[in-house]
């Protein structure tokens, strides 16, 4: 599965970056490809491109602040608080697998 994700936390100092790492590791274990954009204190990093968005199977927003979803219009989108990724990154990706496979 091709996953795109955005992480963002209230202070933008730590959780944003921990969540990115956790998602990347979980995706690797599950055999998914993932790219994670961080919106934190140093601004937007690892920004998702329009082409990547076009090709993605799903977009996962894991944030405690508002993230602009405009550019993801028409894509399957999952929007959850960052705590869920902090708690159980593999559980989150597993759920997404289940959901998407059911739709097919």
């Amino acid at each position, binding site marked *: 599965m091709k996953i795109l994700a955005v992480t963002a*936390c*209230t*202070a*933008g*100092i*730590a*959780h*944003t*970056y*921990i*969540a*990115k*790492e*956790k998602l990347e*590791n979980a995706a690797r274990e599950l055999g998914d490809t993932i790219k994670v954009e*961080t919106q*934190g*204190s*140093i601004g937007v990093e690892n920004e998702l491109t329009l082409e990547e968005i076009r090709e993605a199977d799903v977009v996962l927003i894991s944030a*405690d602040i508002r993230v602009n979803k405009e550019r993801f219009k028409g894509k399957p989108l999952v929007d959850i608080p960052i*705590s869920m990724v*902090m*708690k159980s990154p593999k559980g989150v990706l597993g759920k997404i697998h289940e959901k998407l496979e059911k739709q097919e």
Partner: protein
Amino acid sequence: MAVEEILDRRAIDLNMEARDKDQVIRHLAGLLDSAGYIKDLEGYIEDVYVREKEGITGIGGHVAIPHGKSDAVGKVGIAVGRTREMVPWESYDGEPSRLFFLFAVPSGGEGGKDHLRLIAELAGKLGRDKTMDRLQTAETYEDLLEAFL
């Protein structure tokens, strides 16, 4: 990344006496203050508590990362502390904590982008099982650096 650039020996105490959350935060904030990172200690501590109220900072694996983005911070810094006994702390895995990273970030966010990046990188590594495992047994400053390699 140069972890030693952001992990200041003067702000690290791996033999902390603290028994509760307030003692942990006060002790580590005091270390940052003595090392010259903080302009107004009480103001900073207040802002750390503001963040504590917003959500959980115990990231699991007996590690907690309280932090404050505050006008009371002079420059970006991290204090690290470890207690012998577990300290009650709200966490994602429901476990108490004994290793603490207290982050201090000036509210403007200016004048320290390189250091903010180091903090982000260090935080990212806390999302790796390997780093977390190594941290459990880190006894010295050198162990700490090694855990983040």
